[in-house]
């Protein structure tokens, strides 16, 4: 053969106008590419979450792979089917394919968000992923193509080594390895030629499967199960047109004659391949035509029509014509049509068919995307040009590889020995075998994973029996009719004569104590209303293999159909005829209560004494009390003490008697026992002077409490002021607290009883000089009718001492004015730590509030409903003669003795943290007059664990103080200022009497005084709601009140609480914001976890 027939280098200058134009396009495109790498996809592309794949995938990758099909189709034709005459076309076709795949990979790097992770699929196999399949296949095929291209490169290098161009000297040194590699490649090439065809078939078809996972988003025109087959067939059909295009194009561009003698016969194959594709494609459309909708997406229909008519039918018709195949122009045009058809098909599948349902804007590639794509195409052209210029790719007029090789062999390379031939061949086979093995393993793994998933899904989707919703009793899991509280009394008991008041019994607390086990008390079950014997619950359950002891609600959704009987359903009088062995109701109560209480681990609060549960009725004293003549007050006391011998001494030790006592709740004075009421400054009368007759009238003793009063004589005790049950006894302020002489003391003494609201209220309701003036939540109306005012005193008819428990006449309770404390009152004592019900989300939610919010805060929305309370006193304007004037409530707005007064009704409390202790300002304590002096501040802040938010009444007052010594002045009022209205003199006298140094210079200072609000408790229905404190949005309420969804809740709230807005100032309380939003004190905010148990 003549040398010009061999594949050879192109003898043309490398840089031409065309090459430079290509370089310019590449520069522009890669500038965009680099911008994408530096700034991110958004800055260069039009991609978004909906259209996440653009032309970089649909053209650069999908079309790139399809158009590189010339490589494997030609290789199959020449090497497998043995059509050796097409051999000259093989090298350019393989080179085109290699460059195509190489730039597919490079283009992909620009599209991948984390391109530096592109090696990951090698190690993180995901055999279920079609993309993994495509990726691994493409990678393997790229390697195969590199091997297939390498002979041309090696030959080019060898040829260069023989010449004297640049680099020849170096190449001569490595000539031997080049020759060795060349001969090895020659040996293994057949292995990889076949592998290349197989790999191509695999990933060409897999590319079709790629979009099928988006089945629901694909236009059904293209979404067919045979899409992989269509992709493979179209890739095969486009292979030879690509070879023809490339050959004719390069021939014309390099000024050579088109190799029509090869191309025309090659074109003969195209109608068969294209025809087969057309048959399958049209057949698929015909079979599925009923499911297809060509009308609603006209764009898609047009795209399909163009794809089929222009890209399939037209070239098919053209190429069946022999004349067309022989004409370079027509052949070129027909090849272009096929290529156009395939490109449009890939665009159609990847872009046009992809119709995401939530698409908001259509995708069109950006300038950057288009430029990059052009740059990729230009890169391939540039590399092609480079390769054909420097390496023997293009044929002369005809070519034969072996001629070249023979030439090489001529130059004395030793032929490879048979041993090495088989070693190299074995290695190649092993690599293919390894790939197959890997492939099998990955697939097996993936298939198993899917099987597991499906099995798991089948398990979790197995239907459950429908949930039985519990009925709606007031207390979930409790029978209907369940009550929190019972008064244990019964006609059966009364009939037999009874010495005791009925027992208040908290059903719910006992329910919680026995952990919801109703059977602990309700031990038998009666099957009918007439059955008064019933059957034993333990035996009943034992028959069903159930051991009693847990909460009943654990098994019973509802006890509605079998409610536990009340005690008196069976128990009545003792020794009844129907069941003489059944004990009576009284016995049942006592056995159940005492027995259980005695078994409680010590120390216990469960009472075992009679008086621990119920109070005896006070016996009629008419017969017990006897007087020889008309008794004086102290005679009555002596008569009382005749029987109640110990009580006299008890009372002499109480705070009510001494007006002083232990002050454990006053910070700084915790360990003192001698802080007297008189030594504490208050905002009402500055000091409480015991020596005045008014004070004497509020003391439980007879006589004025000046130096002459004998605190040691029990006969001075005024028993009747508390124990008079006639309601007529009255201390006379003008007679130092002694009753009117005309009052029938003997009659009162014969009818004594337990103190009630009236008796306690005779002093406490009037503190501050007028009804309810000081406390605000203690009004005289409570005595007569507390029903609407206070839950305890009204609805439950409780007495003061039911909460203010009394031991040896020492009465529990803490005041913010009096220093002495003889025990504390706690709601929890009766209501427990979980007061809001026994179950349910709302109960738990409200019980969580108890950690930070006192009961009173919600359950006393406001106070002073009938009698106005004093909220401000300005002493600085006292002593003037002003006309008498009253406010809207009929209360004086000015008093010459006290200054101006401000009264208020229905007062909303102020809310402060309070841990149970407080400060106090004693006479002589230094003050800071630059700001309002807080006389008795509640102690506590958000971070104090014991502190809770409590409601307080705030009373402000302007009081005189010693300007130099910075102490509050204590003017002498009674027998002093109130007679002469000379303030400097009154202060001098008062300070002297109090023993506090006085500079003679006084001014006025603003003071604040708090009193705790604990009375006028309202039930749940009237208590504050969520929206009173928390952000006034409907959501806060509808969390639980789902029925309230349509209500205008802010409006509703304004109706219920007129004028009330954000109750609690959370910022002032130390929260960063509404705790419903930012989270509570000691647990995490919403969504971050459960509060610690």
């Amino acid at each position: 053969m003549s040398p010009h027939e061999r594949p050879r280098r192109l003898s043309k200058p490398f840089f031409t106008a065309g090459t430079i134009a290509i370089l310019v396009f590449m520069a522009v495109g890669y500038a965009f590419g680099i911008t994408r790498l530096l700034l991110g996809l958004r800055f260069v592309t039009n991609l978004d979450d909906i259209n996440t794949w653009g032309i970089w995938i649909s053209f650069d990758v999908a079309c790139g792979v399809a158009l590189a099909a010339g490589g494997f189709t030609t290789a199959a034709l020449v090497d497998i089917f043995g059509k050796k005459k097409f051999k000259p076309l093989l090298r350019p076709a393989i080179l085109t394919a290699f460059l195509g795949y190489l730039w597919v990979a490079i283009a992909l790097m620009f599209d991948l968000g984390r391109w530096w992770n592109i090696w990951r699929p090698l190690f993180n196999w995901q055999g279920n992923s079609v993309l993994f399949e495509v990726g691994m296949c493409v990678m393997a095929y790229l390697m195969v193509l590199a091997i297939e291209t390498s002979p041309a490169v090696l030959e080019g290098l060898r040829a260069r080594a023989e010449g004297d161009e640049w680099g020849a000297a170096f190449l001569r040194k490595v000539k031997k390895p080049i020759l060795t590699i060349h001969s090895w490649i020659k040996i293994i090439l057949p292995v990889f030629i076949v592998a290349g065809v197989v790999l191509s078939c695999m990933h060409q078809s897999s590319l079709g499967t790629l979009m099928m996972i988006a089945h629901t988003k694909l236009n059904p025109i293209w979404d067919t199960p045979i899409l992989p087959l269509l992709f493979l067939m179209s890739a095969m059909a486009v292979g030879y047109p690509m070879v023809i295009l490339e050959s004719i194009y390069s021939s014309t561009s390099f000024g050579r004659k088109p190799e029509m003698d090869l191309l025309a016969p090659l074109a003969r194959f195209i109608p068969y391949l294209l025809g087969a594709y057309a048959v399958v494609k049209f057949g698929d459309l015909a079979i599925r035509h009923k499911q297809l909708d060509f009308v609603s997406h006209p764009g898609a229909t047009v795209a399909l029509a163009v794809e089929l008519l222009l890209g399939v039918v037209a070239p098919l018709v053209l190429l069946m014509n022999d004349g067309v195949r022989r004409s370079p122009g027509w052949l070129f045009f027909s090849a272009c049509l096929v290529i156009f058809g395939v490109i449009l098909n890939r665009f159609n599948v990847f872009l046009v068919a992809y119709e995401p349902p939530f698409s908001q804007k259509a995708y069109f590639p950006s300038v950057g995307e288009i430029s990059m794509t052009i740059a990729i195409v230009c890169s391939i052209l540039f590399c092609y040009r480079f390769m054909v210029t420097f390496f023997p790719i293009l044929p002369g007029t005809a070519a034969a590889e072996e001629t070249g090789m023979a030439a090489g062999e001529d130059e004395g390379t030793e032929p490879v020995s048979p041993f090495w031939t088989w070693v190299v061949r074995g290695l190649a086979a092993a690599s293919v075998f390894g790939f197959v093995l890997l492939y099998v393993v990955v697939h097996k793994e993936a298939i198993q994973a899917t099987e597991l998933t499906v099995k798991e899904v089948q398990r979790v989707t197995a239907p459950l029996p429908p949930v039985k919703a519990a009925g709606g009793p007031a207390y979930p899991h409790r029978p209907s009719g369940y009550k929190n509280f019972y008064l244990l009394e019964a006609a059966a008991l009364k009939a037999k004569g009874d010495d005791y008041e009925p027992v208040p019994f908290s059903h719910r607390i006992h329910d919680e104590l026995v952990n919801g086990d109703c059977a602990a008390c309700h031990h038998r079950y009666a099957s009918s209303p007439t059955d008064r014997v019933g059957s034993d619950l333990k035996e009943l359950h034992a028959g069903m293999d159930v051991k009693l002891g847990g909460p009943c609600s654990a098994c019973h959704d509802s006890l509605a159909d079998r409610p536990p009987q009340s005690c008196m359903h069976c128990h009545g009088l003792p020794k009844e005829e129907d069941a003489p062995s059944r004990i009576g109701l009284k016995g049942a109560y006592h056995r159940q209560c005492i027995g259980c209480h005695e078994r409680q681990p010590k120390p216990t609060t469960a009472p075992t004494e009679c008086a621990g549960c119920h109070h005896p009725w006070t016996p009629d004293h008419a017969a017990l009390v006897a007087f020889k003549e008309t008794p004086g007050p102290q005679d009555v006391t002596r008569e009382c003490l005749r029987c109640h011998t110990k009580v006299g001494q008890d009372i002499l030790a109480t705070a009510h008697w001494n007006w002083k006592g232990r002050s454990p709740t006053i910070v700084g004075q915790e360990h003192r026992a001698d802080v007297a009421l008189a030594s504490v400054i208050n905002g009402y009368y500055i000091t409480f002077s015991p020596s005045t007759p008014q004070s004497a009238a509020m003391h439980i003793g007879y006589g004025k409490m000046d130096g002459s009063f004998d605190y040691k004589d029990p006969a001075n005790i005024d028993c009747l002021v508390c124990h008079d049950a006639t309601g007529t006894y009255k201390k006379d302020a003008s007679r130092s607290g002694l009753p009117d002489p005309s009052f029938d003391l003997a009659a009162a003494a014969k009818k004594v009883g337990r103190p009630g609201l009236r008796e306690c209220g005779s002093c406490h309701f009037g503190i501050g000089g007028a009804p309810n003036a000081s406390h605000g939540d203690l009004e005289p109306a409570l005595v007569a009718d507390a029903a609407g005012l206070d839950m305890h005193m009204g609805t439950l008819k409780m007495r003061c001492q039911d909460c203010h428990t009394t031991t040896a006449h020492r009465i529990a309770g803490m005041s913010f004015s009096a220093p002495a404390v003889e025990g504390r009152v706690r709601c929890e004592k009766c209501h427990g730590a979980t007061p809001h019900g026994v179950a349910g989300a709302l109960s738990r939610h409200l019980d969580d509030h108890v950690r930070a919010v006192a009961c009173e805060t919600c359950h006393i929305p406001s106070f002073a409903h009938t009698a106005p309370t004093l909220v401000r006193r300005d002493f600085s304007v006292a002593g003037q003669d002003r006309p008498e004037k009253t406010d809207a409530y009929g209360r004086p707005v000015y008093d010459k003795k006290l200054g101006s007064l401000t009264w208020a009704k229905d007062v909303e409390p102020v809310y402060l943290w309070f841990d149970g202790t407080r400060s106090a300002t004693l006479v002589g304590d230094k003050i800071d007059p630059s700001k309002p002096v807080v006389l008795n501040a509640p102690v506590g802040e958000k971070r104090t664990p014991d502190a809770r938010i409590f409601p307080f009444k705030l009373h402000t007052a302007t009081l005189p103080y010693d300007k130099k010594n910075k102490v509050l002045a204590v003017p002498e009022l009674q027998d002093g200022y109130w007679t002469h209205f000379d303030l400097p003199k009154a202060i001098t006298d008062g300070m002297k009497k109090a023993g506090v140094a006085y500079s003679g210079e006084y001014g006025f200072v603003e003071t604040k005084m708090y009193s705790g609000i604990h009375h006028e408790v309202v039930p749940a229905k009237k208590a504050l709601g969520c929206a009173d404190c928390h952000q006034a949005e409907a959501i806060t309420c509808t969390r639980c009140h789902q029925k309230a969804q349509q209500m205008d809740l802010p409006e509703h709230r304004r109706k219920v609480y007129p004028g009330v807005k954000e109750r609690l100032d959370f910022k002032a309380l130390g929260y960063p914001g509404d705790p419903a939003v930012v989270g509570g004190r000691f647990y995490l905010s919403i969504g971050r976890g459960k509060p610690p148990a």
Partner: protein
Amino acid sequence: MTLSRRALLNLGLTTSTVAATAALAAPAEEGEKGKAAPAPNYAAVLVDTTLCIGCRKCEEACNRRNHLPRTAESFENRDGLRTFRRPTANAFTVVNRFPGSPSPDQAGRAETYCKTQCMHCLIPSCVSACIVGALTKSKDGAVVYNPTICVGCRYCQIACPFEVPAYEFDVALTPKVRKCEFCTDRAKGTGANPACAASCPTEALVFGPRAELVAMAKDRIAKRPDRYVPHVYGENEVGGTSWIYLTGRPPEEIALLKLTSTAPALRTEAIQHGIFKFGAIPIALYGALAGLMWMNNRKAAAGGEPPASGGPKPPASGHEGGAA
């Protein structure tokens, strides 16, 4: 009926919130010991769109919980509902408003709200699609993402039938796929709900074991046939989802796509594994082509033409041996 069996059932129901996570967390250890522990179930959320009031608290909770960037406007601002929104890289869940009352018996309400987030499909397309397995289905059914191995191909976005995964297109080097991951660390000792469900004021979102929630949903439909469309959305859609919806109007009206009950992932996997199961077809093709090549070469040699390449015999035997 034995009482003890009933007791078990009832205990499970009364303590369902605790049991939900307990049941999800417990089986791993107990299962290994071989004890008859209650079988674990997938975590799920039931969305009752008739209860949703569009307060956007779930959006806010999600934002806080996932440390997403603070939004310019407050979540209190319901103007955000005016435009139809989809989950984005900075908002894993969004609530949309649709005109018309949520159900026939709620005539007083003029709007329906519907929350959107990752549905956590039982057979997730994204997991099947992911090229490296960066998206996985965890034991409790949550579809979670591992950015370390992600290559950023965004095939998950193509695959997701609900169009949920969002991508950080404006991050240059380390963009991530962002979507609801079901607050996956919820089981780490806290037993708490996902943030959105925990914050839902109307309990329109209920978190629990999937089977229980499906039963609950059906119970609600049975109890209130006037209120609900008799279809639990997500029970069977694309093979079932962990987020299930109860609606009072046709789901399509409130942007809940009409989908078939087959999982798209199973369809592609069937094709893929059908063609390439254990590489059988490729290996057969290789064998056939190699045989053809060998025959053609032999024919060429016999015909006196020089063989195509140096090796007259293709090494087909080696590969066929490997395939067998």
